[in-house]
């Protein structure tokens, strides 16, 4: 720029003497014309660059907005991350498995443990009821109803009542939704959810030792609190009795649906549960289905009868004791026979002959 101006100055043939006003004007115009000719390209380039700067500035503002807006940022980078993960998995499967093992291993272990627990319950139940009258009756009912005998036995033998259901915000412990079996809302449900969260946090801090485990169940007398936690919320079910097969899975499904449907509200939960009202309907499936599927009184009586039956039944220990007594008696009789048997027999035969 300076160079161009200098060049223009050097071309300018202005005389050193004082010029007339008309000459000045002409010279000024000529200088402007010369400037326009010489600087035209530079000016055009400057306008072009200014436009480019404006465009980049606009782009930068948009990017800033997207970075500050978590939702927009997630929407932007999600496809890229998904592609990157897919590509990494296909390119280096072993490394990915190794990296994810601490997470997947724990998940698999938890699922297997849960499945094993269900299986043990199922087998135990079948063994206990297989040869009883009730068992035979259930076999017939199961055949008629088209379900397995195990499911039939479980249904009638294990009482299960869901007393309360809490949907609680995971970080703050604020109650999002609540359902009670009786239909009457418990006035302290928000306090209970707060304390329950405090207990969860306490257990995690005291025993978690930096691992990703969590409190899953609390037992108190006949009541148990089953806890299923998601990323932003958790469900606590206050139940009586043993949950049927798959109930925990059902809890997980409901929680997953709630978190999926209300992701934005849960992520930045501000204490206003109005927007999450529909979550209660999802929760109701955990309550109503269980209540419909059983007659609590009949099941409790059945469980009591089975317990009594177990108490009075011939356990292996009883059978062994009776057999032992029988063997001891036989040995005693054999010994007596060997000592006095011959003489007794001879006398008896003589008497019979005489008669």
């Amino acid at each position: 720029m300076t160079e161009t101006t200098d060049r223009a100055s050097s071309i300018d043939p202005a005389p050193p003497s004082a010029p007339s006003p008309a000459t000045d004007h002409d010279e000024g115009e000529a200088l402007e014309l010369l400037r326009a000719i010489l600087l035209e390209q530079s000016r055009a380039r400057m306008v072009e660059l200014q436009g480019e700067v404006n465009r980049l500035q606009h782009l930068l503002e948009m990017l800033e907005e997207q970075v500050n807006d978590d939702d927009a940022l997630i929407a932007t980078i999600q496809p890229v991350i998904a592609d990157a993960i897919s590509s990494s998995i296909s390119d280096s499967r072993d490394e990915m498995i190794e990296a994810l093992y601490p997470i997947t291993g724990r998940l698999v272990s938890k699922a297997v443990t849960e499945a094993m627990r269900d299986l043990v319950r199922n087998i135990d139940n079948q063994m206990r009821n297989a040869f009883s009258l009730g068992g035979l009756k259930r076999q017939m009912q199961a055949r008629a109803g088209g379900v397995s005998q195990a499911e039939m036995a479980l249904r009638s033998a294990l009482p299960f009542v869901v007393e309360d259901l809490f949907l609680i915000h995971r970080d703050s412990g604020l109650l999002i939704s609540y359902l009670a079996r009786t239909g009457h809302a418990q006035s302290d449900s928000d306090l209970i959810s707060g304390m329950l969260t405090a207990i969860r946090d306490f257990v995690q801090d005291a025993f978690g030792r930096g691992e990703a485990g969590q409190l899953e169940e609390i037992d108190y007398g006949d009541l148990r609190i089953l806890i299923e936690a998601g990323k932003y919320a958790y469900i606590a079910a206050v139940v009586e009795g043993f949950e049927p097969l798959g109930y925990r899975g059902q809890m997980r499904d409901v929680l997953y649906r709630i978190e999926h449907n209300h992701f934005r509200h849960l992520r930045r939960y501000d204490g206003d549960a109005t927007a999450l009202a529909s979550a209660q309907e999802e929760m109701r499936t955990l309550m109503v289905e269980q209540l419909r599927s059983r007659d609590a009184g009949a099941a409790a009586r059945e469980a009591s009868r089975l317990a009594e039956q177990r108490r009075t039944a011939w356990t292996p220990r009883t059978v062994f004791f009776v057999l032992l007594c029988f063997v001891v008696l036989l040995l005693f009789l054999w010994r007596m026979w060997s000592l006095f048997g011959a003489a007794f027999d001879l006398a008896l035969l003589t008497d019979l002959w005489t008669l």
Partner: protein
Amino acid sequence: MISKKICLLGDFAVGKTSLVRRFVYDRFEDKYISTIGVKVSRKSLVVAGAPASGGGASGQGAPVEMSLLIWDLAGSEEFDRVRASYVRGAAGAILVCDLTRRQTFDSLPQYLTDLTAVVPDVRVAVVGNKSDLVDEQALSPEELTTFAAQLEAPAYVTSAKSGAHVDDMFRHLARAMLT
């Protein structure tokens, strides 16, 4: 109804539990504070909401029904891991010191630092408790106000014993959490 979580922080025996007892509905016993380190209480109240954009000259919005879940944390000398998990998700916090013990005031900045490390956007109120012990004051209200001003937070001189300014303080914080 809007629910908000509030935490009370401060050294041992500054009167946190007494402040809560003055103000709230209790269901659980205080023994939980020493066993698991926290007790949750609740206070329901109605406060003036945040003014709507282009609202009236009064600067107040429609009344809002609020439920404050107040987490009374056990006071200790250091901010341990347990307490960090307890303040998670809090919308408000009350930093409490004892006006008769200066060292309880000196420890407030540390509580604040640890608190904002977990919940950066938390609303804070600074409270000097035991104003009824007039002859034993080791801290002036001005010092409390200066400290609170640095945090752009309200300062309150309260007495859990007489109830002075306890209600005002909780209401002020409740309103602040709505904005």
